[in-house]
């Protein structure tokens, strides 16, 4: 058993949309600082689970605690404790890099000094100080994704949710992005990530594989032999 503190606790989670069961009795725990890969075929029910964990959807039944907060009782409190980024929506294209940081810092209620200190900290680290006044739309995708990851970390969340963060990103930037994930995890941030790149699934500490609303496998990538297991599990659906 993992001795680390549990940061996400899910017990018998069920989510129905009418007659359709999107999440069918899920039970799993995720630990502080863990890099957790959330895998499954399209339509397996992953997005529903992520929305529930982020406080955007109410479960039909079951217990869900995220960063110590009961999602059924206080969904709004959860939002302050988490960061989120995905491929399609992360930052505003017609604002500059700096404006995006200021905007998100404001949303999360950071004071001016914190926003400016943390913006400088991340831009220095990414070596992107020189482009702080550029509009986001003029910046290549790979750079944007690194910025988006920093923005999602701006309010120092306990957990960061990454929904296909590296889709379409070049192989070098993809690897740099994962270095950022490892660093966040080293600092105690829990990383919850979905991906369609199987090599990236191997970078996770543990992965779960979902199919037809259920978690069919959960464990360390090297124990699971994920490539084979994924094929087997997802094939059964068709």
């Amino acid at each position, binding site marked *: 058993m993992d001795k680390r503190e549990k940061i996400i606790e899910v017990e018998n989670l069920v989510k129905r949309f009418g007659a359709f069961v999107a999440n069918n009795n899920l039970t799993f725990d995720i630990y502080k600082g863990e890099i957790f890969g959330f895998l499954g075929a399209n339509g397996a029910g992953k997005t529903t689970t992520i929305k529930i964990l982020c406080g955007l959807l109410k479960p039909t039944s079951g217990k869900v605690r995220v960063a110590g907060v009961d999602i059924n009782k206080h969904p709004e409190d959860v939002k302050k404790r988490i960061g989120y980024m995905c491929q399609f929506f992360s930052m505003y294209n017609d604002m500059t890099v700096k404006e995006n940081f200021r905007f998100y810092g404001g949303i999360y209620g950071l004071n001016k000094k914190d926003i400016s200190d943390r913006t400088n900290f991340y831009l220095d680290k990414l070596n992107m100080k020189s482009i702080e006044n550029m509009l986001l739309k003029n910046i290549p995708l790979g750079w944007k994704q690194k910025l988006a990851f920093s923005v999602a970390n701006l309010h120092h969340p306990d957990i960061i949710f990454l929904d296909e963060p590296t889709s379409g990103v*070049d192989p070098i930037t993809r690897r740099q992005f994962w270095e950022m994930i490892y660093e966040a995890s*080293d600092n105690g941030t829990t990383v919850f990530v979905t991906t369609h790149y199987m*090599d990236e699934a191997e970078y996770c500490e543990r992965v779960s594989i979902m199919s037809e609303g259920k978690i069919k496998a959960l464990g360390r990538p090297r124990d699971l032999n994920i490539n084979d297991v994924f094929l087997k599990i997802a094939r059964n659906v068709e």
Partner: protein
Amino acid sequence: MSVSINIKNIVKSYEEVEALKDISLSIKPNELFGFIGPDGAGKTTLFRILTGLILANRGTININQWDVVKNYKQIRKITGYMPGRFSLYMDLTVEENLRFYARLFNTSMEENYDLIKDVYEQIAPFKNRRAGVLSGGMKQKLALSCALIHKPRLLILDEPTTGVDVISRKEFWELLKKMQKREITILVSTPYMNEAALCDRVALMQSGKLLTVDTPQQIVNDFEGHILAVKADQMYPLLNDLLTIKTNGQVYRFGETLHFVTSANPTKMQEKITSFLEEKKYRNISVEKIIPVIEDCFLAFMNKTTTSWTKEKK
């Protein structure tokens, strides 16, 4: 008769960005040709020029005897195009979408059913569902059916597998192989490097340039140096430790291993790394010489050619 394509010196700029920087290449009749590269490589721009949707600033493209600008009408009749964001009508059902596309080309679903049978049968159980509620994998199959319904001789597929899970991706490639047997020339783009091996020939692309054009096998054969796949119990510190070994090559993560690229004798390097890691008290060490895959080759090309993006802008 199969379709061949001749692309000569194509240049295309959007305001500040040079999307295609002098692209020349030929595609042979009945080839399954892959354009492999990340977002921003220029794949979509090239496909849009090929299909006559936008004009190049310079250069020419011939599809068989036809020029893509002057003879776009002839070319449209023989081309099936599946754009990256599938152009399906979300409020129409599966079957309505297909019938609509058939009518655009003065044909019917029945007339060419034989060609789409393999694909369409997989989604036929949902033919009365609106396209908007289909899963990604099913949308992709419907979009392919629509692109095939007028029996094209040239099929252009822009990232048909992006964001689609591994299983649906595999099935999609099996379908493409079947299509190829019908004497259709197929151009397909993808950001997934491991799909390159499924093509007859590929162009590796990055930032509007061709890094190389060849068969996947030849690209792998031409890889300079050797790759050692390194594994141990503690993978995170392993990368930093391996980087301290003096080498002119690269070290990077690759799935469950690290790839150590070296131009030195691989057997000697293998011994050197093993004893180095034993000294550092790593456990369950494994150092194996492996054959490179396309992503290794792509990384090698990138390291050779990529200048920083901000530098390039100035």
